[in-house]
């Protein structure tokens, strides 16, 4: 036991669904030593006023993110495909319900 380090636990990211049927949204993070503790800490920290109907906790180091410094061009492929947007199309005058 003495070789166990005194830490505050690992970082977990918390995602909450505020109403049934809505998407889960990132709410913040918590420290915990295992998944049970993570979900209990997240409940106590983020849903004290009935904010939650569903909850995910994910170890922060399991999240893969785009690096904003080196991947500025990452989202570029979408830029030249304006025909993916409905406003690209010319419709005859008087078209309704479209």
């Amino acid at each position, binding site marked *: *036991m003495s070789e*166990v*380090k005194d830490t*505050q636990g690992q970082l977990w990211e918390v995602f909450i669904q505020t109403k049934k049927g809505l998407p889960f949204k990132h709410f913040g993070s918590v420290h915990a030593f*295992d998944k049970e503790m993570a979900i209990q800490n997240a409940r106590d920290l983020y849903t004290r006023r009935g904010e939650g109907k569903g909850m995910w906790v994910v170890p922060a180091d399991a999240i893969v993110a785009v690096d904003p*410094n080196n991947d500025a061009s990452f989202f570029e492929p979408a830029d030249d495909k304006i025909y993916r947007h409905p406003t690209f199309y010319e419709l005859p005058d008087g078209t309704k319900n479209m």
Partner: protein
Amino acid sequence: MGAEELDVLFQERIDANDKIEPRDSMPEEYRKHLIRQMSQHAHSEVIGMQPEGNWITRAPSLRAKKILLAKVQDEAGHGLYLYSATETLGISREELIEKLHQGKAKYASIFNYPALTWADMGAIGWLVDGAAITNQVSLQRTSYGPYARAMVKICKEESFHQRQGYEIMASMANGTAEQKEMAQDALNRFWWPSLMMFGPHDSDSPRTGNAMKWKIKREFNDVLRKRFIDKTVSQAELIGLTIPDKDLKWNEENNSYDFGQIDWDEFWSVVKGGGPCNVKRLKHHKKAHQEGEWVRKAAAAYAQKHSSK
């Protein structure tokens, strides 16, 4: 890209009201400024639990006790939101706590004043949380994304804190003569320290320049202080209490109150450790942290054992 060029690009983003996110490039001084300010803010929430925690076992009714428990739990939560937000700048929770224990990181001086009577629970909620809200509403627009988001969450919850405090003050002010006297005494003791919570005059605040340039701070200390006074005076009048400032006077021309001199010697003395409870607050935090060490170690050992199965 050279450092100067990066600084120019960074300032352009700030000027365009872009939010800065954890992995974005930022000047080292911006990062340092945020770590100092945000950790001080986090420590304030946590140390702020002490004066109120002191009254949980002595609350005058079960209703009052439940409310106070919920409020102190909220303060712990606010501390955690802010610690997490500070950690996104690349500093660990352990380091943050160590800096507090070494006296390298500060917390709000207001918590170095004692909570002597039940009326102080009212004064703290009404005035201390009221001043904190005034400041935090402004910080919802701070340039660092995680800090701004933490402020939005905190502001939503703080309004309950202020109302519960004002309710205590109102019921005591309308109670027996003795109760009213206690309420007035609490207001007398907490009024000036609450005004000091906004910090020194901007002309005496060496870091204001950078903080405004980088939009970490969005409004000046003196502006926020004035806003707090303007909205609080009529709340005191409504419940028949008197603000302890003989120079307080409505100024028709400025559409705002003129008020007396703040005792800045007292402010600086408390900041430097000379307040009534500085030693006690830090000692208690260290003790609680040390006494929790075996719990953290046991939890780590348990998690380790179960993950290796």
